[in-house]
């Protein structure tokens, strides 16, 4: 590490530059804002959605957009004198829940100081008061911009000494612990990977109603062709089996893992670990696997819970099927009685996309 610091002078210098001296770039800020856009809108006609709209943000007292339901904490923060400017936004965006304890904003924060500066610069373009001052600010930062731009490009990696590793090609660099922690979020059936935390069925019901019910239905029965999450027990041998968490999924860890990595659809990674415990607990409740609304699921009791269908998964044994086990030469002549009859036509339930008839087919996913 010492060696890295000494010879990585350029990179170190850039890292040491305080936020204020960063070249703030509107275009880069627009990219960063994609992380925010799942909940916030900005620009012409922007309306408050999951989060308040962000037009004319600068100088706005915290928690004061008309008609938006803030957390009590955010309203209190505004009343105590906090209004949004470059400094307060910078502090807030790094760790929202540290700056305003109890903020409803689920976003964990922007780790890169350049991202913070850039997104603030982007938001300024939607603020009548700030937009006029943008030109001069850019000129001032021109010099710093060159360094930042270089530091952001992986091309620089070639100039940095590589940390030692035993690989044959000596390519790549060692991952930091924080980097591995940021991406390694998978959870196994034996509980490996579960974060410390907990959530109750009752908490989960509120979260589920807000975040999940729009697609999965109030009771996990699903809207349209979105996945059904509850019910379907004892249907696996039916003509139309209903494969749900309770009827089909083998492991509870998959529920936690998947909700945390990919849900809610279109706003992934926005739930806290405790939120995911609560939603998972509620899904157990919807599937009658727990019956107590006060039940609390946590990393401590997680692996005590087994889903009903766990034992019904078997290894791949296709090769033993009769048609595969017999590897003799296939029949070439008079293999069936003459003539061969048609037993079914696609036309009968024509669901080909060009046709205007209603579909009756089964979904594949």
């Amino acid at each position: 590490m010492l060696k890295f610091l000494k010879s990585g002078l350029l990179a170190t210098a850039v890292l040491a530059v305080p936020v204020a001296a960063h070249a703030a770039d509107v275009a880069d800020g627009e990219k960063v804002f994609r992380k925010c856009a799942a909940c916030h809108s900005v620009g012409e006609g922007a309306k408050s959605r999951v989060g308040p709209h962000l037009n004319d943000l600068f100088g706005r007292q915290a928690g004061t957009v008309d008609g938006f339901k803030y957390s009590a904490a955010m309203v209190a923060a505004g009343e105590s004198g906090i209004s949004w400017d470059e400094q307060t936004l910078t502090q807030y965006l790094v760790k929202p829940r540290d700056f305003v304890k109890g903020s409803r904003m689920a976003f964990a924060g922007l780790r890169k100081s350049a991202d913070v500066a850039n997104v603030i610069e982007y938001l300024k373009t939607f603020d009548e008061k700030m937009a006029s001052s943008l030109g001069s600010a850019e000129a001032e930062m021109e010099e710093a911009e060159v360094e930042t731009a270089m530091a952001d490009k992986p091309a620089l990696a070639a100039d940095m000494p590589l940390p030692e590793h035993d690989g044959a090609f000596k390519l790549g660099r060692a991952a930091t612990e924080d980097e591995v922690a940021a991406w390694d979020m998978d959870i196994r059936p034996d509980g490996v990977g579960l974060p410390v935390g907990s959530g109750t069925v009752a908490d989960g019901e509120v979260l589920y109603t807000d975040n999940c019910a729009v697609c999965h239905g109030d009771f996990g029965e699903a809207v349209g062709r979105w996945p059904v999450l509850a019910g379907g027990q004892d249907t696996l041998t039916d003509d139309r089996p209903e494969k749900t968490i309770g009827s089909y999924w083998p492991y509870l860890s998959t529920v936690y893992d998947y909700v945390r990595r990919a849900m809610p659809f279109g706003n992934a990674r926005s739930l806290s670990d405790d939120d995911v415990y609560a939603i998972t607990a509620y899904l157990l409740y919807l599937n009658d696997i727990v019956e107590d609304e006060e039940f609390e699921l946590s990393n401590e009791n997680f692996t005590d819970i087994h889903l009903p269908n766990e034992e019904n998964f078997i290894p791949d044994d296709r090769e033993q099927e009769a048609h595969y086990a017999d590897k003799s030469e296939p029949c070439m002549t008079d293999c069936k009685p003459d003539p061969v009859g048609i037993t079914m036509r696609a036309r009968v339930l024509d669901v080909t996309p060009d046709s205007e008839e209603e579909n009756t087919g089964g979904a594949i996913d």
Partner: protein
Amino acid sequence: MSKKTKETMDGAAASRRRFLQAGIAGGAALATAGAARAAGDPVITEVQDWNRYLGDGVDAAPYGMPSEFESHVVRRDVPWLTADPVSSINFTPLHELDGIITPNGLCFERHHGGTAIIDPADHRLMINGLVDTPLVFTMQDLMRFPRENRVYFLECAANSGMEWRGAQLNGCQFTHGMVHCVVYTGVPLKYLLEEAGVKTSGKWVLAEGADAAAMTRSIPIEKALDDCLVAFKMNGEALRAEQGYPVRLVVPGWEGNMWVKWLRRLEVGDEPWAQREETSKYTDLLANGKARRHTWLMDVKSVITTPSPQAPITHGRGQTVISGLAWSGNGRIKRVDVSLDGGRNWHEARVDGPSLSKALHRFYYDFQWDGSDMLIQSRAMDEAGFIQPTKNELRAARGENSIYHNNGIQTWHVKADGAVENVEVS
């Protein structure tokens, strides 16, 4: 109905209208052919516009597109299959293609959280878990490893999944179009894993995507160290965004879901992770209520692509070409047979073009059609000795609720007028 879906359907309807109009025009030409014979074919006897006036210069199309007369050759989707087009599927127009290579823009798409748009400068590939040194690679790092070029098919495990309960979709684009085959350029996965140093306890690799679904699959270490590639080019150019730009995993012969796109992380572990796509999905429910898991390999399979419902015979009786595709996750295709009478009698087809392991194979059967009804089928055999089963054999073994891994023999009913229909036979 979403806007995209509506456009897709309008496009399909429009192309069918064009096809019908062309047929009518062709008929009219035939009717007047007798009168015109003395004078000759006007496209020959009269000077045509394209023969007189200048065409576009070399600056007209910096990235070339297909001829305007090929605008009907597009991917299509089946809106009712899935809840939303951002977690859905479209299909390769197999009936319009030939040879073994699929053009990049026609490779079917399947993704679970829409197409991730990633600047390669912002992309990283991490290796962590049971390795000596967890590593991070930039795209530039990946380009410095020794590369390989390999042709492989990629088939979604759910290809033909809608046909389990019987003939359903009229067109091989829809029944078999979740397959494509391109030449990949990439780095053997084993080089990357060895660079990090896999510990002896490492038995599995979790591949993870950078998309909004953070797609994950567990892959046994034997496969990871065998023939998997980390690919950044397809057919010589960068991966298309919808195929995982800037980098995807290639898992030859195994189900498409494992070929994680927008690949950002590989974790080495001692047990599989039982992720959503290997438990609640991509497991094969049998008639007895048990479900097979880890059914990775794509079985031996074939389909006749022309004639087929979207590509009827329009030339009448006489010399006729039956053409199709065959493939197997076990390796090369050893032989393809074609039947004209619903599987009673079989004729060996001619495989033409390269015969590469775990790649599409192109076959032809050239014959004189007498103009009578036909029930055409193809049956593939692979070098491991596996023979493509009938749909009824599969149903007898598995029931009708497996969704995945339907490699049964397809039957097309060719009628005397050349129209073709998807049918099942006795």
